[in-house]
């Protein structure tokens, strides 16, 4: 006697499940093969100086990448990889845990060179005048996209269910997943 509501409930559940399926899949997938378009050619023109300063910023005009980092920001694994690379390549050396230091703060999203994934990507790839080194050629493109995703998570620009939780380290500030987009913090260079 109660079939119509049941059928409705059924369809609702189905719809919910399928939408869940989509987000869950892209959120949780771990692609272990290297993307075919992944270029990491060495950079003959710029000699490497040190691990912290792989190369001076490039003077040639900024080239934005084709894509906008699709498949990286909505994937928890890639964001986590980005967090690891942020630690490995000592980004904290200048940007601290996002609070900023020698380099600008990253926990607000008011960025001099734009906060779009593509802009962050080219900032990392090509470097910026007065400090930000160019990692192009020293990092493979998927690594840079992973870093980009993580850097954006630091200012709460990512979905909460892909942004990282706390690290197994001393806590500078709250976990990325707990952050909301903040307005620019005055004084942060």
């Amino acid at each position: 006697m109660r079939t119509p509501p049941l059928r409705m409930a059924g369809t609702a559940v189905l719809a919910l499940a399928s939408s869940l399926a989509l987000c869950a899949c892209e959120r949780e997938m771990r692609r272990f093969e290297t993307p075919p378009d992944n270029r990491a050619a060495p950079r003959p023109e710029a000699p490497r100086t040190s691990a912290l300063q792989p190369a001076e910023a490039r003077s040639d005009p900024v080239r934005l990448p084709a894509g906008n980092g699709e498949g990286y920001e909505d994937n928890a694994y890639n964001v986590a990889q980005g967090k690891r690379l942020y630690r490995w390549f000592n980004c904290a050396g200048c940007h601290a845990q996002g609070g900023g230091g020698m380099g600008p703060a990253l926990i607000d999203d008011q960025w001099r060179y734009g906060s779009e994934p593509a802009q962050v990507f080219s900032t990392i790839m090509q470097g910026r005048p007065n400090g930000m080194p160019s990692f192009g050629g020293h990092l493979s493109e998927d690594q840079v996209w992973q870093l980009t995703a993580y850097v954006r998570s630091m200012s709460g620009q990512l979905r909460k269910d892909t942004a990282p939780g706390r690290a197994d380290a001393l806590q500078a500030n709250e976990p990325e997943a707990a952050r909301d987009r903040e307005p620019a913090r005055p004084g942060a260079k």
Partner: protein
Amino acid sequence: MTAPRRELDVSALPSYAFGHRSLMWWGTFGLIAIEGTIFAIAIGAYLYLRSQADSWPLGAPPPDLLWGSANTLILLASIWPNQKAKRAAEARDLVRTRGWLLVCLLFALAFLVLRGFEFAALHTRWDHNAYGSVVWTLLGLHTVHLLTDTYDTAVLDVLLFTGPMEGQRFVDVSENALYWYFVVFSWLPIYAVIYGVPRLH
């Protein structure tokens, strides 16, 4: 030879009773065993983390005694109305049961309000360090029990005022009081750990 059918007539037996004769008592006993174990293990975790740390508490002064102690007193005092309610229930005196249950409820609410101040007086947050995490967990666990038992008492009292009445309700009141005693007495070791252990040297 096997005996002829002979019936054991139980129709005259009581249909409810207090204490361990009632099924409710055993249900409550089970809950108390579970919750007690959880508290014990949480305290164990606290002491374990302390044993791993060079200094304790980590990066915070010991919590202020004021609110915690005040709460302990209120909680101990709340035994009295509970005992009254239990007695009244076991005497099947509906009016006095209602009344005393109401008093218990007031105690519980007062306690919950103070509990808020208690959290503030911990001087740490769950996400500061392991000490903060475990203290908040201990206090949080106990608060959850308070909340549930308070809600339970409230529902029961509303039922006594409005709902259909039968003897079994008195048993429920009596078991509710039993559970409240557990909430009270489980607090004492937790109080000792949260407020005492950080002051040990």
